[in-house]
């Protein structure tokens, strides 16, 4: 419930960001993030809200772990939590 999932911002509309999560585009609310977010930035999404902007130079390792989780396992416990985070965002 606290793992979150990182994604790359494609577009901003008011308080919503259209975010790419490993090839899936979803909308994320921006009321909680404490820095201005722009297209190209990475954010950490938790239960439908961006809670942190992550500097691009620091994201590589994080993305690798999530990619591995999503790629390797269909019925994996941790991967299911990541999928749950994606389900919490708006289509």
């Amino acid at each position, binding site marked *: *419930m*606290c793992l979150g999932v990182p994604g790359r911002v494609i577009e901003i509309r008011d308080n919503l960001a259209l975010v790419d999560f490993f090839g899936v585009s979803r909308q994320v609310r921006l009321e909680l993030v404490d820095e201005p977010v722009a297209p190209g930035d990475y954010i*950490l999404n938790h239960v*439908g809200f961006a809670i942190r902007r992550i500097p691009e130079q*620091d994201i590589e390792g994080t993305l690798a*772990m999530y990619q591995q989780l999503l790629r390797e396992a269909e019925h994996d416990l*941790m991967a299911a939590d990541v999928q749950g985070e994606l389900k919490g965002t708006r289509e």
Partner: protein
Amino acid sequence: MTASGTQRPDADVRELKFRDPARGAALAAALAKTVGEIGRAPVSVMHVCGSHEQAIARFGLRTAFPRGLDVIMGPGCPVCITDQPEVDEAVALARQGVRIATYGDMVRVPGTAASLADAQAEGAHVDVVYSIDQAIALAAASSEPLVFFATGFETTAVATAAAILAGLPPNFFVLSAHKYIPPVMEIVAEMPGSRIEGFVAAGHAATITGWGVFEAFVARHGVPVVVAGFEPLDILAALVRLAELIRDGARTVENMFPRCVTRDGNLVAQRQLWQVFTPIGGRWRGIAHVPNGNLRLLDRWSHLDARRRFAIDLTRLWDEAPSLLSQQCQCGDIMSGLRTPADCALFGAECLPETPVGACMVSSEGTCRIWHEYGVPR
């Protein structure tokens, strides 16, 4: 306490692969060396996050820990620490005909005698959601009252707060069982029999609170705290730092997750959290009464508060008693770091993910569920 054995991997068999194998090996060596230098065994440290336990178990990290280091999961599963009476309130409302929406695992968590899934089987209207937004959409599409059974730590409570501040449909109400992590660390640190010499703080909760929130804790209890991320290398690096602090007798907070965590944390989120909630003492399932550990809606939001809006009828509970099995559940001691699932006679026998006796076997962030999925460490 043997497992039922259904497709359960042995943890030692799970192959440990680091993204950067050389760095992983160097960190593992540094951890072994530092723990050895402490000169006593075992050295016990606690993390307070289900996602950390998932990563440790999923990636086989314990095989990289030295024998003298005990890494214990504490009260880091928000579903697991939601107390029976809180579940009872949601179940009672559901049985009274009020529609309930809540996060997935909450549905199967037992109250005193029943879960929301039991109420659902009796015909109650219970919806699983993955965000408060989805619950709001359900309410907006109907005129029927909907109660969002709001659970989770500060990471999730801030979402509830933001949604409330942004405005809700008039038929939307909140039953808050939100919890706040920093106070429970005090309780666990003070527990008689606790062997914890250092804490690993959860990176994403600290993203909200900031690492500064742990400074007073460290000053009071004299044990170091290290904030950690969730990748295997992050966790290993944090443990090396924590072992160094223990070895040196240093009583400080160290931030090993700077890409997400700052000293002050996310002030925008904190402002919204405290505009909506106030800390209040309450029980955490199986652990203790935790002063300031629960988050209650402020009086200005009483019109949204399900506890004030509805007469929650708990009288039916008078005729129901916890099952004999559930009285043997060790969840509380496990979440307090005093026992492990391997010490529980029910684990993997009567208590399985399909037929959970305790909350720790229900939630994907519960120690029992995680160990059942990924194997019992050696």
